[in-house]
C-alpha cells in the first residue's frame, strides 16, 4: 500500500519545532555534568581497578596443590583466533594429565573469554590485568611461568563466574 506516513518533523509539536527549549535542555545536562562527579580518571597516574566482571588477560589458576589445568585442549579448540597452544604430559597426581607447555599468544588473543567459558576444570580465567606491553613478537607469547596465578588473587572473577553461569542447556522436547 502506498500510504504517506507522517514524517518525524510532521509529528513534532509547536514547541519542539522551535528547537530552542530543546537546546536549553541539552545544555542543562552539559552544565550538570560539568559540576557533577567525574567519570574519567587520569590513567597512567591513577590506576583503574575493575570488578570481577572485567575480561583482561587470560591466566591459569594455581591451587595450593598445583595447577588446575589438565591440558584437555578445549580452550585451544574453542579459541577463535588460535591463540592457545597446549601440550600434555603425565603426572602421578590423581588427575593424570598436566600441561607440559601452555602458551597464549597475546597478539592473537581477542579477550572473548570463550576459553574460560569452555574450561571443565575452571582452570583458565580472565584476570583484571589490562596493561600488556610487549617489545617484540616473541615476548608476547606467554608461557606457563607467566600465566600461572595463585587462586587467592582471582577470587573476584571466580565468584562472578559462579554467580553468572553462562549457559544452561535447554530442556529437549522429549524430556517434557
Amino acid at each position, binding site marked *: 500500500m502506498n500510504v504517506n506516513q507522517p514524517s518525524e518533523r510532521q509529528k513534532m509539536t509547536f514547541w519542539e519545532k522551535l528547537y530552542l527549549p530543546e537546546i536549553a535542555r541539552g545544555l542543562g545536562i552539559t552544565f550538570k555534568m560539568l559540576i557533577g562527579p567525574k567519570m574519567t580518571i587520569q590513567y597512567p597516574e591513577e590506576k583503574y581497578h575493575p570488578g570481577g566482571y572485567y575480561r583482561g588477560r587470560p591466566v591459569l589458576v594455581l591451587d595450593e596443590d598445583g595447577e588446575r589445568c*589438565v591440558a584437555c*585442549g578445549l580452550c585451544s*579448540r574453542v579459541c577463535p583466533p588460535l591463540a592457545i597452544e597446549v601440550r600434555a604430559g603425565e603426572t602421578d597426581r590423581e588427575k*593424570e594429565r598436566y600441561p607440559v607447555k601452555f602458551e597464549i599468544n597475546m597478539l592473537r588473543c581477542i579477550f572473548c573469554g570463550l576459553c574460560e567459558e569452555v574450561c571443565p576444570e575452571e582452570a583458565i580465567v580472565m584476570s583484571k590485568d589490562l596493561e600488556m606491553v610487549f617489545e617484540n613478537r616473541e615476548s608476547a607469547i606467554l608461557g606457563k611461568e607467566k600465566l600461572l596465578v595463585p587462586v587467592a588473587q582471582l577470587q573476584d572473577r571466580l565468584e562472578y563466574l559462579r554467580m553468572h553461569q553462562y549457559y544452561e542447556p535447554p530442556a529437549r522436547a522429549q524430556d517434557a
Partner: protein
Amino acid sequence: MPTIYIDGKPIEAREGQSILEAALEHGIEIPHFCWHPAMSAPANCRICLVKVGMPRRKPDGSFETDENGNPVIQYMPKLQPSCRYPVSEGLHVLFQVPEVIESQHAVMEFLLINHPLDCPICDEAGECKLQEYAYFYSRGKSRFVEEKNHKPKHVIWGPNVIFDAERCISCSRCIRYADEILHDPVIDFVNRGDHVTIELFPGTQFDNPYSMNVIELCPVGALTSRDFRFKARVWEMSFTPSVCPGCARGCNMYVGVLHNQILRLQPRTNMYVNQYWMCDAGRLTQYPFVNENRIDKPLVCTENGTLTEVSWEEALDTFWNKLQSVDAKEIGIVVSGMLTNEDAFALRRFIREHIPAATVMLMTVEDPEFEDDFLRVRDRRPNTRGVQTILGDVLASLSVEEFRAKVESKQLKLVWVIGEDLEQVWGEEGRKIADGADTLIVAASNASPTTQVADLVLSLATYAEMEGTFTNIDGRVQHFIPALTTAERPYRWGMKVSRWDKMGAWNDRWSHGPRRHCRPLWQMLAATASIAGHSWNYRKAADVFADLAQTVEGFARMTYALLDERHGIPLGKVDEPEPPVFHYDSHRLKPESEEYRYVQVYDKAEQWW
C-alpha cells in the same frame, strides 16, 4: 534373500544375517557397543534393542489383514537385541519408535551411572563411541546423585596397552578379540554387578603382537595406547589414508599427523587385505623413521671428506656428471622394495634411456621370524612384488657375494643405492660394497652408515611425503596420498591438515614443524632426464602412473580413482571387480569426512601447481 521391513522400509537382507548387520549395510545406523562384525555377538550392551514382529496368520495359514488390506503385525511383547536376532522373510522391525528410543535413553543412563566424567583427561575423547551415543541416544542428564564406583585406573596390561577399569562399560569386545581372533585368551571379567571389571589371568601379560587392536575396538577410553598416551587430542590431528610399509602385506592405515609430525598409525578397514586389524610392530616402528634422523637436504661429499648440504639443482648436476663419468657397464644399482610403483617405473625408463648396460639388483629384506599366520609376512618391504613386476628383465639375477666381487674387482665402479642402508641389510658384505665402490651415490630418507661414506646423498621422500602405489604380496595395487608437507611442496590443498596446521602463521611457534627438502625418486629422475635433454613431462605421480598403466601389462587401465573406489586392485584384474563387501568402521573422529574427496581435490591442486 529375505525381505525385512525396518520402520516400514523394505530391505533385502542376506540369509543368516542379524537385523543389525542388514540395517548397517543399508545405511541405517542402529546403535551398538558390543557387536563387531568380526566377532560373536553376546548381546550384552542392550543399546541395540528394537521392536520385532511378524505378520499374524489365521488358522488356515493365510495372513490376517486389517480393513485397508494391510497385514496385521504381531510384535513381541519385549524388545529384542538386533545384533543377535536373525532376519527372516517378512520380519518387521520398529526402530524409530518411542518405546525403543526410551529404552536407548535408559541404557545410556545406566552405562553413564558409573562412567567417570574424565573426558578432559581421556585419550579417547573425540573419537569415543560412548560420547557419540551420549549425544545422539541419551537425554543428556543423569538422575544419579550418589558417588560413583571406584576401580583401579592406569593398569598396565602389556607393553603397549593400558587399562582404566572405571571407564570400562563391560562390552567384552577385548575379551572376545583375545579369545576368538588372537586365540590368546588372557583376559576375562571378574566380580559381578557394578563391580565387574576385566583382569588378566595371574602370571599373564597382554603382549600379543596384535594387542593394540583392542585400542580401536574399545568403544570407550578404557583401553588406550601407551605409545600415544597424552601426545595430542585427536581433534587436533589430521588422519590421512595410507598404506603400511612395514611388510609386504600392505595393511591399510590412517596416518595421524600434528604439526607435520606423525604421532600415530592406526588400522583402516579394508576387507580384502587386513580387515580391521594391524600389527603392533607396524604401528610402532613405521612412523619414528619419518620424524627422526632424516636427511633434510641433498648432500655432496666435498674434497676434505665431509658431507655438505647443496641445492637440488647442484645435487642433480653432480649426479648426472657422476653417471656420465663412467661407462654405463660400470654402474651398479641396488634397488629397494621401499620404492613405489611410480618410482620403479621412472627408474626403468631412466635406465633404458640413459644407462641400459647398468647392472641392477633388487635388495630383498626377509625376516622369517616376523612371519605369522595372521597378517605379517616375511618380506619386510612393501613393494618387492611391484618392483619385480615393473623392472622385470632390467633386474640382474645376482647374489650379494657376486655383486660384492664385481665391485671389488672394479667391474662396477659406480654403485648407486636407492632407499636402503647397505650395512644394515647386508652386514659385512654391504660395508665392503660401500667401501669398495669408487663412487657411491645413495638416495635415502634416513641417515645411516652408508650415507656417511657416500659421495652424493639424494634426500628421498618417505611414504608419508609422497603420493604413490604399493603392490602387496598378493599383487594388490594400493594407492596412498601424502600426509606431510615438504619444503619441496609446501602447499597443502587437498591434503588433510588439522585446523592448527592450516591456520598457523609464520610467527606461531606450533607451525614450525619440520619441512624437508626431499623428493620421491621419480621426481629426481624426471629432473635428471631434463638435464640430459629429455623432457619426460611428468608433473605429478598420476602422470607417471598413467604412463605405467599404459606400458606394464599388469597395471593396464588402472587409475588412482579406480584404486580408491575398489580399495585396491590385484594386478591384471581391472576388468574383474571383486564382489563388493561391507566395510565397517566402529568409531572414528566425527564429523566424518569423505576421505576420497580429498584425493580428487589434491589431484586438482597438483595440476594447478
